[in-house]
């Protein structure tokens, strides 16, 4: 079965239009009409991070489109630990374009925008070249817009705001982009990997794989495509195994959460399976935290980044994340004020739902997961100590290290 990254090796660069057509055949244009129903049946969920069902999103736009909708292919990959969106654009640009064209036909759009992060140079070049290869078919209805740097620039209302007014900050919703987006028109904002996956569904695939980005204490970091029923242990093995004993995994990136390794190790990464345990696949980031690394310090670095990336429009996000960042840094440095742990626990529960976008929700979700998984470490740091050092026996990876 065709997969997102099957075909030539990633190191070969962008697949040409000719090679793409040879592998996949022509764009199944007639499939667009029935595609929304098939996407719903496939249970494909968006791969940008929020995990919204793709079919339902397309239908919401199609219901309002009147042939005047816009497709915004979101390739602004602001998540610091994720590389998979720029990889799919750089290596398989025609699969992304197929998905965007099918989406435009399915929802009734006459304008397709590829919103590509300014720092994703190879991806942008590949997308521009691939669009030029198909210029005759696209007849001027597709264009590339460079997304400015920054974590929030990829948020859907921020993307629409930037294209409409040059301002990459989120706007108050409603209206959401599917109601009123680019140029005031119903707009489908869809992650580029999701579009590539939709192009496979249009050709009869079951959407059973996903791209992930591995990092941290694993032997071969980087982007991989996994079957969604694979367990974390199998995924780690496919990456050469763990480099060191591991205590926890950052699942879903900076908007995701920490999970104790023993909670996840033998479980499939399928979104439904994760959801049942209160976790989320998010954008497919899996970062392994070694047993002798400190979760309080790792979390402080993440909170510092997320606080710095606030669009600074909403008080609870600007001041709340700023205060959490400062307290997390004091805790990490083992110079906490008496109530720092108590305060970040309270703030971590007070900010969600109180921004124009979900930035404070994502940041405090990550913080709350850290307070749970690293509870002992936080208690020790509040008292000015760090308990990290020698790895505990029996953790996955402990054996690998003993052998190595």
């Amino acid at each position, binding site marked *: 079965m065709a997969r997102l990254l099957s075909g030539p090796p990633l190191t070969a660069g962008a697949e040409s239009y000719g090679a793409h057509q040879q592998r996949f055949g022509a764009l199944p244009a007639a499939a667009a009409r029935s595609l929304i129903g098939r996407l719903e049946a496939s249970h494909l969920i968006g791969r940008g991070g929020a995990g919204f069902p793709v079919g339902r999103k397309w239908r919401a736009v199609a219901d309002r489109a009147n042939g005047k909708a816009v497709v915004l292919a979101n390739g602004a990959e602001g998540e610091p630990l994720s590389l998979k969106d720029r990889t799919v654009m750089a290596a398989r640009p025609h699969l992304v374009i197929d998905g965007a064209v099918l989406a435009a036909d399915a929802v009734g759009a006459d304008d397709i925008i590829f919103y590509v992060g300014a720092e994703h140079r190879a991806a942008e070049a590949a997308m521009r070249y691939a669009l030029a290869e198909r210029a005759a078919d696209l007849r001027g209805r597709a264009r590339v817009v460079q997304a400015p740097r920054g974590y929030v620039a990829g948020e859907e209302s921020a993307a629409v705001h930037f294209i409409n007014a040059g301002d990459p900050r989120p*706007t*108050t919703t409603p209206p959401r982009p599917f109601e009123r987006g680019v140029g005031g028109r119903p707009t489908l904002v869809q992650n580029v990997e999701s579009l590539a996956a939709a192009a496979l569904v249009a050709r009869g695939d079951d959407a059973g794989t996903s791209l992930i980005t591995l990092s941290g204490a694993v032997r071969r970091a980087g982007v991989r495509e996994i079957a969604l029923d694979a367990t974390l242990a199998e995924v780690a093995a496919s990456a050469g195994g763990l480099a060191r004993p591991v205590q926890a995994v950052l699942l879903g990136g900076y908007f995701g959460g920490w999970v104790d390794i023993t909670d996840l190790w033998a479980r499939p990464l399928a979104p439904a399976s994760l959801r049942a345990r209160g976790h989320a696949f998010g954008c497919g980031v899996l970062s392994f935290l070694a047993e002798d690394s400190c979760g309080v310090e790792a979390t402080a670095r993440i909170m510092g980044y997320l606080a710095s990336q606030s669009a600074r*429009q*909403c*008080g*609870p*996000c600007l*001041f*709340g994340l700023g*205060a959490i960042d400062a307290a997390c840094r004091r805790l990490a440095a083992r110079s906490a004020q008496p109530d720092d742990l108590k305060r970040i626990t309270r*703030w971590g529960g*007070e900010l969600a739902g*109180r*921004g*124009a976008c979900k930035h404070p929700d994502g940041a405090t979700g990550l913080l709350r997961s850290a307070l749970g998984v690293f509870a002992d470490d936080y208690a020790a740091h509040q008292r000015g100590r760090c308990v990290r050092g020698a790895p505990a026996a029996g953790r996955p990876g402990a054996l690998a290290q003993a052998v190595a």
Partner: protein
Amino acid sequence: MREQLVVDRIRCDGHGLCAELLPEVIALDDWGYPIIKSGSIAPALLEHARQAVDACPVLALKLALVTAM
């Protein structure tokens, strides 16, 4: 369907008048920004909620009809 208080978080500057006029429903966080404690407004508090909406100096507070999802 019931009326619900909705804050435009970008407009809100944390003046805090709303919490003074409607402490049953609105609390303030450590920086003076409102926390809406309960979703829908009880009928007995509706008049106070309207006053809070009118008092907001930056028009960031609204009463909106929200359909239960």
